[in-house]
């Protein structure tokens, strides 16, 4: 990065190219934010890494144990179980909103009356306070008094135990997550649809392609990169999901819906086992980064057309 002195810049203002001219040191603009980012973001990363190599419980003497926490993690059945829950929960919480969100985007991409208002209502679930909506979902899941079992009984299904039974708890939570985050996928795909060229559709019309063919062979390949962006963002958020899970089940019944994030919370802030909790945090973080890198790599391979996302 070229940093010119201020006299250089003034003297060269008229002649030097625009990139060079506007590049000079903007450091003073960035430094305050840099201090904040180092303090609340970078410092915690480094400190967590360090703590993960310690035997560290609140109120006790700390000592260095090297990789011992990580070895303990590899044989911790509760952690491995939580990892399984996390992967299932994430896979479903990516797939369902992806399909529904794409369908919603196709519907919203038409000339609708009151489109703005409808879109505003549609995005409400993702903006609403998670704890507040989780409380209402808890009431709706109630096996005897909940409205969901009543609705199911009207079509002859149920009653289900929803979040109160190990076999249905993860699916029930995925339902909430899908309800909450389908709008985000919709917004991303809608952005993609808005950028599509119209010519291919005109020629397809002339060739007599039907709506499904136009979607399958024109729209879908062209919005591919946007779908990849949606998958990446959705995967990260589903992996990190906390508020909904913690409020509705706290990982229960038993540990049937305990994800890595919830287990991390228990270890660090219920048992105050800071060192071990930090090791979980590090592994969890590495997992998220790895997944993102894999998805980014896939995205690069799929981004072969002009309708590229970001």
């Amino acid at each position, binding site marked *: *990065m070229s940093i010119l002195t201020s006299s250089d810049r003034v003297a060269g203002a008229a002649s030097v190219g625009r990139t060079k001219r*506007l*590049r000079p040191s*903007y450091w*003073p*603009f*960035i430094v*305050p934010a840099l201090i*904040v*980012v180092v303090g*609340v973001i970078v*410092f*915690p*990363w480094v*400190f*967590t890494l360090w703590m993960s190599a310690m035997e560290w419980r609140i109120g006790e003497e700390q000592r260095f144990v090297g990789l011992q926490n990580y070895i303990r993690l590899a044989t911790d059945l509760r952690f491995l179980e939580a990892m399984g829950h996390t992967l299932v929960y994430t896979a479903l919480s990516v797939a369902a909103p992806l399909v529904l969100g794409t*369908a919603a985007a196709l*519907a*919203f991409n*038409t000339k*609708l009356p009151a489109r*703005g208002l409808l879109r*505003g*209502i549609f*995005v*409400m*679930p993702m*903006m*609403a*306070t*998670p*704890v*507040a909506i989780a*409380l*209402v979902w808890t*009431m*709706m899941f109630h096996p005897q*008094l909940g*409205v969901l079992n*009543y609705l199911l009984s009207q079509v002859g299904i149920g009653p289900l135990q929803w979040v109160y039974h190990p076999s249905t708890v993860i699916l029930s939570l995925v339902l909430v997550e899908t*309800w909450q985050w389908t*709008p*985000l996928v919709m*917004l991303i795909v809608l*952005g993609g649809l808005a950028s599509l060229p119209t010519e291919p559709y005109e020629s397809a019309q002339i060739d007599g392609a039907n709506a499904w063919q136009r979607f399958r062979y024109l729209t879908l390949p062209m919005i591919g990169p946007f779908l990849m*962006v949606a998958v990446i963002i959705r995967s990260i*958020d589903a992996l*990190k999901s*906390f*508020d909904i899970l*913690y409020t509705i089940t706290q990982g229960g019944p038993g540990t049937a819906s305990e994800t890595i*994030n919830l287990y*991390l*919370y228990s270890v*660090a802030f219920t048992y105050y086992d*800071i060192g071990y909790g*930090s090791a979980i*945090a590090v592994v*969890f973080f590495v997992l*998220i980064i790895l997944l993102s890198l894999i998805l980014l790599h896939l995205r690069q391979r799929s981004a072969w057309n002009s309708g590229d996302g970001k």
Partner: protein
Amino acid sequence: MSRPLRTLLDKIGMAVCVLLLVSPALLFFVWMLSLSLKFEIDNGAYPPILIPERFAWKNYTTIFEGNSFLLYFWNSVIVTGAATLFALVVGVPAGYGIARMRAHKSAVVIMIARMTPGLSFLIPLFLLFQWMGLLGTLWPQIIIHLVVTVPIVIWIMIGYFETTPMELEEAAMVDGATRWQIFAKVALPIAKPGIVVAFILSVIFSWNNFVFGIVLASRETRTLPVAVYNMLSFEQVSWGPLAAAALVVTLPVLILTVAAQRQIVAGLTAGAVKGG
């Protein structure tokens, strides 16, 4: 089938589709409102009642009596307000600097920050706040909410300043204005819509944050999401007041969402950000 009829049918079909798509959100919030306005006996009724004969307005008055709800509301306002204002003060210039230096690589830090689970910031900062003796005040929460608000503001402002025209700035530079003058007098006024987007999203994600509060808040420093969660766990659970409290907590956000949906959509699709 004749052509006008066909387009009419298409339109009706589309309208039905969209109604189907909007109804999960709409019905949920209608049901939330219904729960919050019913007496216990109506909330326990089977089959469920949507519109009761008598409205339980007292659900709303009870949450403001005896629950220190006003205090918690005020805590939320202070934490969200301070974290957002501070993020704007440091984040808007930073977004400008990064955009003008074309230092896009530095935005990777912001991306990774967004990927990091909130809990992994919480462990080290919790220890730091304990060591500094700040626990029990609002400071830990204000500071840790910067983890949410600062990346949002920087991310959106980088994107925004990259799209603003440079001609005016170049002209001002030729006229001998300093960088700060150009920023304050030229760039900032043009960037107002971007700042509004950053402000709205920062407020919403900070307001909604729960995980930082459950660890860092003491009895007097709870924010609203933590307070409403505690109503669930520590008191005799009655649905009416609980739903009313949940609605009060999220109502400011819902109003903001519908009122500023255009800005929110623009901001979310630009950075696809989410806090926490």
